[in-house]
């Protein structure tokens, strides 16, 4: 049991090796041993790891779950799984079958793996301080029910999810009750539901990720002290699709993110004490949809370019601060040349209010009549909330794009 | 040459042409006379196919003119008011008409020369006076040597000199045996030319007879007088 450091053994597995199967190798292995699996095709059903070992693939050996099994189950701390191609896990509506599942472990490392056609991809429950990096996860299942999440973390802490590429799952990355963790430099695209699904998870950061073409964008809900920096949210299209859906979020930072070509870049509901700065909103349908339940949200130095509607809202909210942003639709002037427009900018257009109430009215957008309505509204505001305004609109971009 | 049978045309409540039947042989010069709104122009336009009659038939050289346009290459028409594309010069208009008519035979440039268009060829149509436009219309009507000439108020708006030139031209063409159909208010001008008189009133043809017969019947030499006599007789008969 207590093998000394430096004394750990290496066990080779492969067609031309003495040991042909991974299961056999693991049964021979001691704690801290390394099981080196050579390239080849392994159909061994469920591989169960209950010892602290390093399981390393050479030349990307394939582990096939034959559409029946969970391929790797880990129930020991400090296990490393590195360099496998893991394909065809089973599917179940009762159990969360995964390509690699970590049960109540800490310090595990899952890296450099390729997962293809798994139900769930990499799954942790009650994990602590695990590192999941450089994996490529692809699923091509068409229905949400038949599809699990790419990287799924439940009740975990201090997780690091780094540089993974996730495609075609139900949710790309799923966080529920996960704290003090970081999601960094991942690319999550074309997932059926959310690129990132994030609930009841406090004090996490996600930085420099790309979320693109996801069915419903990214959803961040019921969490506080979340930091979202430099992420890209692109081309998330549909009625329920948002660059980010923010619901019941408090004390969070949204900084330097890019929102491009989303139906709605950010939808906010019940967001409070959140600071949004230096974000770029470009060519979205709606840049911001702010529900009246949001308060003390600070928006500064954000850039709004080419959005169909800058801000949409369902009420006459005044509890948020919109001062000091750059709006390409601003038509005011700056007589004292201090870089700040002398007239306030009202980002909520009359027609966005009409469309909010009656979505099919979108079919009349850009017509002569709607332009007239918008112009009249600018002179005599009746429908749009009068106090929702940027009183210090920037005349120039606050930073280079 | 031209024969109309039972031509009727109604504009709303107004009967513009009421069952008119008439035959115009070649070589005649027919004066189409009648008060304003009697249907003269409508009748001319029916012959030209510009007005489609409600009933009746018009034959041109024995052929029904309905749904045909080629017979019009044998007609020269001078409208009451001639208006042309405003930005074109006289020269261009003349060229255009030659181009459109695609005329094979020789062109008749008499009026072009007599009206002295040479110096006006570069004038744009919109700068022209009404009289000059009339001259253009007249020149165009005669240009293609048509067998039939239909002249609607030809001398209205022309100065006496031009009027005289046109009259001489009409006489000349008549002598060539062409059929000439003229409407005019200024009856005195027609005395020397006219061989037949067709009188219309309220869309009806009141009479159509040789001018000499008319002169004989009324004992008047001048067309205007003869017509006046007829009109008086008519009123007289109305009272009776």
């Amino acid at each position: 049991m207590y093998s000394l450091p430096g004394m750990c053994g290496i066990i080779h597995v492969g067609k031309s090796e003495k040991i042909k199967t991974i299961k056999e190798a693991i049964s021979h292995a001691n704690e801290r041993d390394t099981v080196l699996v050579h390239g080849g095709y392994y159909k061994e059903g469920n591989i169960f790891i209950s010892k602290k070992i390093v399981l390393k693939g050479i030349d990307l050996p394939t582990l096939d779950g034959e559409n029946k099994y969970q391929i790797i189950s880990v129930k020991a701390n400090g296990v490393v799984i590195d360099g496998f191609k893991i394909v065809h896990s089973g599917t179940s509506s009762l159990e969360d079958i995964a390509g690699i599942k970590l049960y109540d472990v800490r310090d595990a490392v899952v890296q450099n793996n390729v997962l293809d056609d798994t139900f769930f991809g990499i799954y942790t429950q009650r994990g602590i301080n695990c590192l999941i990096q450089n994996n490529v996860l692809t699923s091509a299942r068409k229905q949400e029910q038949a599809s699990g999440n790419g990287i799924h973390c439940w009740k975990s802490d201090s997780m690091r999810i780094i540089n993974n590429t996730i495609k075609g799952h139900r949710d790309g990355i799923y966080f529920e009750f996960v704290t003090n963790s970081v999601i960094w430099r991942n690319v999550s695209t074309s997932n059926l539901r959310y690129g990132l699904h994030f609930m009841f998870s406090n004090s996490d950061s996600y930085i420099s990720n790309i979320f693109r073409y996801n069915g419903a964008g990214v959803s961040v809900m019921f969490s506080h002290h979340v930091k979202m920096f430099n992420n890209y949210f692109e081309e998330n299209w549909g009625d329920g699709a948002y660059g980010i859906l923010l619901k019941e979020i408090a004390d969070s930072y949204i900084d330097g993110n890019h929102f491009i070509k989303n139906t709605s870049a950010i939808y906010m509901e019940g967001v409070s004490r959140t600071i949004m700065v230096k974000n770029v909103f470009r060519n979205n349908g709606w840049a911001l949809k702010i529900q009246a339940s949001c308060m003390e949200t600070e928006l500064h130095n954000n850039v709004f370019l080419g959005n169909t509607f800058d801000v949409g809202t369902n009420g006459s909210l005044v509890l948020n601060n919109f001062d000091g942003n750059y709006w390409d639709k601003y038509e005011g002037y700056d007589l004292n040349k201090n870089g700040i427009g002398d007239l306030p900018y009202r980002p909520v257009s009359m027609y966005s209010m009409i469309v909010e109430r009656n979505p099919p009215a979108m079919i009349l957008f850009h017509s002569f009549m709607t332009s007239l309505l918008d112009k009249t509204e600018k002179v005599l505001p009746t429908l749009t909330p009068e106090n929702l305004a940027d009183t210090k609109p920037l005349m120039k971009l606050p930073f280079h794009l | 040459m031209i024969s109309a049978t039972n031509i009727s045309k109604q504009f709303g409540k107004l009967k513009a042409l009421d069952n008119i039947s008439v035959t115009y042989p070649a070589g005649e010069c027919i004066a189409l006379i009648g008060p304003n709104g009697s249907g003269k122009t409508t009748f001319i336009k029916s012959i030209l196919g510009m007005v489609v009659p409600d009933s009746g038939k018009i034959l041109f050289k024995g052929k029904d003119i309905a749904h045909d346009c080629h017979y019009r290459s044998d007609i020269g028409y001078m409208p009451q008011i001639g208006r042309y594309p405003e930005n074109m010069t006289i020269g261009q208009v003349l060229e255009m008409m030659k181009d459109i008519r695609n005329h094979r035979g020789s062109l008749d440039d008499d009026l072009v020369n007599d009206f002295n268009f040479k110096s006006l060829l570069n004038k744009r149509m919109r700068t022209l006076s009404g009289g000059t436009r009339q001259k253009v219309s007249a020149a165009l009507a005669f240009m293609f040597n048509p067998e039939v000439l239909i002249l609607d108020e030809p001398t209205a708006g022309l100065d006496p000199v031009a009027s005289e030139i046109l009259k001489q031209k009409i006489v000349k063409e008549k002598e060539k045996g062409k059929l000439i159909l003229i409407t005019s208010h200024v009856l005195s001008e027609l005395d020397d030319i006219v061989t037949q008189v067709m009188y219309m009133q309220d869309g009806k043809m009141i009479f159509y007879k040789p001018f000499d017969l008319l002169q004989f019947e009324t004992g008047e030499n001048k067309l205007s007088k003869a017509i006046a006599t007829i009109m008086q007789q008519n009123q007289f008969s109305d009272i009776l």
Partner: protein
Amino acid sequence: MKKIIKYIITDILRNKIILSYTAFLLAISFTIFSLEDNSTKGLLSLLNIVLIIVPLISIIFSTIYIYNSAEFIELLVSQPLQRKKIWLGLFTGLAGSFTIAFLIGAGIPIILFEATAVGFMILAVGILLSIIFVAIAMLAAVKIRDKAKGIGVTILLWLYFSLLFDGIVLFLLFQFSDYPIEKPMIGVSMLNPIDIGRILILLKMDVSALMGYTGAVFKDFFGTTAGMITSFLVLAMWMICPLLISLRKFDRKDL
């Protein structure tokens, strides 16, 4: 007929109005593209011109031209020419002139500054709307004898297509907001060529906003190849129908 077209086009092109129209389009398009640092705003302004100015100028100028050419048309009719050819010649002449004017006035700036899908869609819609409103003008002019009344009617028609129709649609949208009216709306929009054109451009320009549930219904129709073809066919009908009706009318018209 070629000759008639030739003479009408030369006549119209010499007309100061069509020349100033071309110059106006050219000036405004260049201004739009060189002043706006962001091309979306430029396209938006150009869109307004295409949807408002182009139909207005086309319909009014064509109507006036036809009325002013009444005697010229009479002259042509008295010549050995088929009426159908005269009328089609007039149509082709007017439509051709407006197409050329728009191609020069808006096409050159678009190709220089905004050779994108949106730009080309605006160009296509502009040309189609020019032709459609020439056809509508010809129908109005052939139906109404009185010039003043005819011009009045065409202004009303323009007002109807560019403003009143959309007002009615908005009213209907709110009246029937409890019902799924997205699909009937597509049918309704087909009744107005300006709306069809606008939606086709909208789909290229505001595609993100249109991807919402409702928009997706529109996108599913207009965005697909079949929908595009249908829309362009309907636009073609908007050209052909008024033209054919006016042609029949003109063939029997008393001049």
